[in-house]
């Protein structure tokens, strides 16, 4: 039977004991009961997100391994941990990320939003929303595909190269790769967002221009006064010039986007070469 009411003191004492080694079976069972008490809050969050048409991958509860690691690494108490239960949504780009985060703010108006995009944590960039249901926090990670790739690189290299990488440790070369790659991803995503703004603006302007052209043709058939014809033609010329300028900007922003991506791709290729060299020396991958 799962106990739903735990006192803060009881949980924090459990957390203190878990910092040590070895763990007793009764502590692991108590931790498991505590984790399961987040079940209903987790379900409510997942249901809400699915209603938005997204299918997150849910982590029903943080693993004992990760909980113990976090307790030992940080000064956090077990009762303060906000990511016991959580889920992850990976969206295509920052524009989609903004839209999705905005919809979560509506769904969970009292949730706290941790935006790590401009102030990354050891290079990690994403938006985390902590929704609280009946006093139980549930963490929703919203990452773009590139933020996600970077996070997975950081996590995987922490697994197999050095567990401190995720928190700023590891060899100078690997840390430098990850830091530079995180910055390159951020720059690319900003560039890509600018490009998308121009694309959207262009298609709207072209749509409006076509409507004006059609309306003008109809007016001209009605033999309207010359000054009105000139006024309409002037507006059409303005609109044509605007379209031309936007086309130019789209081209420039596309080139910039590709250039910014190349910076990150070059870094990833350097990391591959670095790993290949380690492999040749018989070092762990």
């Amino acid at each position, binding site marked *: 039977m799962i106990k739903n009411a735990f006192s803060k003191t009881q949980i924090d004492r459990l957390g203190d004991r878990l910092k040590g080694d070895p763990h007793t079976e009764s502590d692991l069972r108590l931790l498991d009961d505590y984790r399961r008490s987040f079940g209903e809050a987790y379900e409510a969050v997942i249901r809400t997100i699915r209603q938005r048409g997204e299918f997150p991958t849910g982590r029903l509860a943080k*693993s004992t391994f990760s909980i113990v690691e976090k307790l030992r690494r940080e000064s956090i108490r077990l009762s303060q941990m906000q990511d016991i239960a959580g889920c992850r949504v990976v969206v295509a780009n920052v524009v989609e990320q903004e839209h999705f985060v905005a919809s979560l703010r509506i769904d969970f108006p009292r949730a706290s939003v941790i935006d790590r995009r401009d102030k990354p944590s050891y290079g990690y960039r994403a938006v985390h929303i902590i929704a609280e249901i009946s006093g139980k926090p549930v963490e929703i990670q919203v990452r773009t595909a590139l933020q996600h790739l970077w996070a997975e690189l950081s996590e995987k290299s922490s697994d197999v190269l050095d567990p401190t990488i995720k928190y700023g440790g590891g060899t100078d070369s690997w840390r430098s790769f990850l830091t530079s790659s995180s910055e390159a991803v951020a720059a690319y995503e900003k560039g890509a967002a600018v490009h998308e703004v121009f694309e959207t603006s262009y298609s709207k302007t072209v749509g409006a221009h076509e409507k004006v052209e059609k309306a003008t043709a109809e007016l001209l058939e009605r033999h309207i006064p010359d000054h009105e014809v000139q006024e309409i033609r002037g507006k059409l010329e303005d609109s044509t010039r605007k379209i031309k300028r936007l086309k130019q900007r789209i081209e420039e922003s596309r080139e910039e986007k590709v250039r910014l991506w190349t910076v990150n791709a070059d870094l990833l290729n350097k990391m591959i070469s670095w790993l290949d060299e380690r492999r040749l020396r018989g070092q762990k991958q």
Partner: protein
Amino acid sequence: MIFLIEYNRSEGQIVTSRDFDDSQRLEAENSRLEIELDLNRKGVDHEVVLLEAASKDALQRTHRRYFVDLHQLLKSGSGQDV
């Protein structure tokens, strides 16, 4: 679907995995606890994680780290078409 994964972090590899239907959540949670207790008795430091996703493909997109090595992760990024 629910996926129960036992992962060896330092090796970067899945040790065991088992899938459950959505209706088997309690069974999945009990299995996770049993594996954790067993690993604790043996003194083995593996991560045991319970994840829920629409499909295995979806899980492999959001949690690639469990399924591919560092090389494959890097290559998936450098080969992206922008």
